[in-house]
């Protein structure tokens, strides 16, 4: 278990905080860490910052005790990190549309950064239930992205779902790929919308993680280990999956409806 020291914290929204630290292990957009908060649990977190000199960050929304503790970390606090794990985004796109739902945005923001770093102008749909769910607006705009905000309640940006906005944008054949992370119901709808428009999908999928090293089988999705072969999957796998959007393993290893 490597130890990292928190260098900076940022309150992103009322619900989400980013914790920055340094870690020298090479990391690609879409890969994730297991982050251990001493005295709490260890949880999977994709890095929301892959900067120079080993700058890394994780953005946590409170789901349980551990994510609550991550939000409370202060500069100088120490955490345990394992990883990076998994296979990230291919980055082999002609014209991608990025779509992030809620805190799922934290899994694709580094892909957006990397795309911008190639001199391309990223087009990003940032979706949330309300304006308080919208992540990284300023950071995206500063990085030169074209940003489309959506909220279910219309409190900010386009009133409606991220999928509805993404579908409009995909009309007309402007995009070759849709690169996304968010609630699985959103991803299911987005996959359908994309396939209907012959746009290829690359989604970061979430499952429970314990070992993160391909041992414990708890992240299995149709017999494929999300921690090793995922968490990013393409259209062919997602469309052929019996479990994506329908079932996930619980902590006992029992397959449950989502």
């Amino acid at each position, binding site marked *: 278990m490597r130890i990292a020291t928190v260098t900076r914290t940022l309150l992103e929204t009322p619900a989400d905080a980013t914790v920055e630290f340094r870690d020298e292990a090479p990391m690609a957009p879409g890969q994730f860490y297991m982050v251990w908060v*001493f005295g709490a649990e260890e949880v999977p977190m994709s890095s929301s910052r892959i900067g120079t000199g080993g700058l890394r960050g994780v953005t946590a929304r409170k789901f349980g005790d551990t994510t609550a503790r991550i939000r409370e970390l202060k500069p100088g606090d120490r955490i*345990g990190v*394992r990883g990076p794990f998994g296979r990230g985004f291919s980055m082999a796109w002609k014209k991608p549309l990025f779509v992030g739902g809620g805190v799922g945005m934290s899994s694709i923001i580094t892909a957006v950064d990397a795309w911008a770093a190639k001199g391309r102008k990223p087009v990003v749909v940032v979706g949330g239930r309300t304006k308080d769910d919208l992540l990284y607006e300023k950071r995206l705009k500063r990085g030169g992205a074209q940003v489309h905000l959506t909220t279910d309640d219309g409190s900010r940006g386009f009133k409606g779902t991220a999928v509805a906005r993404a579908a409009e944008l995909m009309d007309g054949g402007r995009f070759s790929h849709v690169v996304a992370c968010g609630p699985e119901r959103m991803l299911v709808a987005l996959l359908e919308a994309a396939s209907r428009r012959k746009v290829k999908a690359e989604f970061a999928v979430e499952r429970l993680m314990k070992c993160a090293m391909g041992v414990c*089988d708890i992240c*299995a999705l149709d*017999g494929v280990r999300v921690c090793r072969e995922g968490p990013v999957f393409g259209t062919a796998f997602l469309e052929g999956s019996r479990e994506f959007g329908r079932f996930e*393993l619980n*902590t*006992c290893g029992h397959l449950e409806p989502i």
Partner: protein
Amino acid sequence: MRLGVEVGTLALDNPTILASGILGVTPDTMVRVLRSGAAAVVTKSIGSEPRHGHATPTFVSLEAGFLNAMGIPNPGAQDFAPVLKGLKARKGDGKVIVSVFGGGAEEFGKLAKRLAPHADGVELNLSCPHLKGYGVEIGRVPSLVREVVAEVKRSVRCPVWAKLSPNVSDMVEVGRAAAEGGADALVATNTIGAIAISVEARRPVLSHGAGGLSGAPLKPIAMKAVFDLAAELETPIVASGGIATGRDLLEYVMAGASAGEIGSAVVTRGEGVFKLITAELAALLEAEGFENVEAARGAAQRR
């Protein structure tokens, strides 16, 4: 070269088996492992009720080997029975051995009776080092081991393997008790009890504190167990502990094992590890002038 082996009455296409606790939860994963070259898979240990397992961190890499205290998360026998049943049609020539853990002979017997009809064998977890009231807490008491194995033998028709712990004062005594209970094979060994401490956290890394050490550091310890058991007992032995190459497996065969269970090496060499080990074993057997696995078995005992 023919690499098939027999562990008692159970015939295996090759001597590589997926160890319990690694990838043995979902049917899709187990089918995938069988297709990747394992002759058999041992399932995750199954108990009477669903268990969430211990809180994370449950798994960590060390300088050498891995330390885990998963706490036997499992869906329980009622939910796992249909999973096993569904595997029957999909496993091809591969064998499925169901691992069970109970708190005493009666519970072991019930679990085995419930699950064995859908499996090719039963492995008794008498050796988990990190679950109170189970595993090695039973497996370190020879009279209990004898009682558990005998009860399971009365309850099922398929082969019964006893997976033993290195965390006992005399493994041969425990192995003899299992043999007297009627075990068809002894699996040696489970992980060995160990702890990793984090200086910065001022606490053990694993939430449970102690865990089980697997991989390369376990090999010489499990090797002695296999060697000692083979020297004293006639019961077939399945080796488990740091098998990552064909050479590792042949060492165990020469110590007296009939086959080997592989766990940690699935992480270090990937799912192709079963085919790799089998191919390496074949080449090494040939180079050393053995016609098959059986011809090399116990070679290190004859001095």
